[in-house]
């Protein structure tokens, strides 16, 4: 575990120096700033607009950070040939992958904290007061963190066998498709061919389901936060279980692929 933590710390330091991180962070904070002005254009729901814009920016730019940095994690080591130094040392490949993953996750966590602080600042600027209900927003931030966990795991898995550009394209495509899992199940009902229908249902379960972290309709975590409703605990717990289990599965797959790679 010590080796994993050392790799994680190094990855964290490396990520912190990445310019793309600061660019995306800047954009997020800029959007959060703009939301204050937009909230004032609205009639009613000023706080809701700030929360919606902030959470959407945090989620979207967090995903982009996870994709752009995650897909380059392994490739950079190969490109700079530093991987040879690493694998020549008594470090298991699984420890390397896990360390890289934890390093990026800690970077994302710090980013989420900064972005959330920006969102809270925007809320404070609007009302010049703090309400206890503001804490409910953290539930949505947690759901975003779970989503980023999964995106990072996908990006890392692709980066073990593909180039950063292709990995980014694959991860982004999966992220989009992952929002349509429920629709895929519905599609199965209207398809004439039973076989195609079964394939659709199988795919909807096999592919990562990102709508689990937002939930459509009344239980939508982002919407609940925007209306200052207490989050549904069961929804959060199920999303947590899904996020951890699917990420673990992808990391196992990443380790498996990485172990098969020949660096000669």
């Amino acid at each position: 575990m010590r080796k994993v933590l050392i790799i994680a710390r190094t990855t964290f330091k490396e990520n912190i120096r990445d310019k793309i991180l600061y660019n995306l962070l800047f954009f997020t904070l800029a959007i959060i700033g703009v939301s204050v002005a937009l909230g004032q254009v609205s009639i009613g729901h000023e706080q809701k607009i700030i929360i919606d814009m902030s959470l959407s920016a945090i989620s979207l730019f967090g995903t982009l950070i996870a994709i752009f940095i995650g897909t380059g994690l392994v490739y950079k080591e190969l490109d700079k040939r530093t991987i040879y130094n690493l694998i020549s040392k008594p470090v298991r490949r699984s420890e390397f992958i896990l360390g890289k993953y934890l390093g990026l996750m800690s970077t994302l966590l710090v980013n989420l904290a900064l972005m959330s602080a920006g969102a809270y600042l925007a809320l404070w600027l609007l009302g010049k007061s703090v309400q206890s209900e503001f804490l409910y927003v953290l539930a949505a931030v947690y759901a975003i963190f779970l989503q980023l966990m999964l995106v990072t795991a996908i990006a890392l898995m692709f980066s073990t066998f593909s180039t950063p550009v292709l990995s980014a394209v694959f991860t982004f495509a999966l992220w989009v498709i992952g929002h349509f899992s429920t629709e895929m199940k519905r599609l199965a009902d209207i398809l004439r061919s039973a076989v195609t229908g079964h394939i659709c249902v199988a795919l909807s379960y096999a592919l990562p389901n990102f709508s689990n972290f937002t939930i459509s309709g009344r239980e939508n975590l982002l919407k609940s936060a925007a209306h200052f409703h207490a989050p549904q605990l069961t929804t959060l717990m199920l999303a947590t279980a899904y996020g951890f289990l699917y990420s673990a599965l992808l990391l196992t797959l990443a380790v498996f692929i990485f172990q098969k790679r020949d660096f000669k």
Partner: protein
Amino acid sequence: MTRLNARLLATGGVILSMLLIYGVQVEIDQRQAHPPGGDETLYVRDPELMRRLSLGYESLLADIYWLRAVQYYGRKPKKSETQSYAMLEPLLNLATTFDPEMTAVYRFGAMFLSESQPIGPGEPLKAIELLNKGIMNNPNVWRFYFDKGFVYLWHLKDHKAAGRAFLEGARLPAAPKWLESLAATSMGEAGELETARYLWTHEFEEAESESVRSNARNHLNSLQIDEDRWRLEFLVTKFQEKTGRVLTDLNQLVNAGCIRFIPTDPSGAPYEYDRDAKGVYPAKASKVTYFPLKAEARKVFQQKLESEWEAARTAPQ
């Protein structure tokens, strides 16, 4: 070329490029200003389709459509254009489908929809439809019933339907006591002026935003103008009956003892008297936007004035 000259040339080039870009952009903007049908385009009107494409950001989409509805309603057309509100209802429908809990969208949306031209599309039935959707999605919000009754009473002049809406709202646990009396007032014998004043007073007191409060204040002032006009015109007739002379100046009413003083309108502007029409009108300088009540409303008030006049005439000196 010296290094200094090269730098000057580069700086000049950058400034020139920036000026050219600005010029080109201005030209593009002028060509694109008010493109035919540009403002009236709503590419996707199916909320369900949009919700599925929203990738979980449906709450944000609701905000975007609400902001768009506010901008759309508040835009100022060119003088040659007539204000169209064709997109208002679809925008409100989209916003409330993405987020059915946005209470302000139902309330302000109904207000926007029911206002008559030129300040609104004059579609109170669509406003009722929107409020019914709000009630269906948020059955415990009494304010929707108040707004529904308001639209029935003010825009559709349907006192019974208004009373029913107020009563339904009054049954909700969080509803204020006055909602029940509002139901009684609107269904009872009270004149339109009293009912309207009661309604706008509560709209003013319950307003959550300054724009609504200011609108309610203006309507209350407008009702005051109605009352003043009717009273003064009534006295003009009585003056003529009493003296056999035609009134030339409102101050003659004071001299004849019909009234103690001539009121000014709520903005402080004096009323204007038209001798030929025997009518009293708000001054052009008045700061109140006047929405005159219909003639039927005047009849009930006229009866009240008659009985007041009779009581004053027969009262012991």
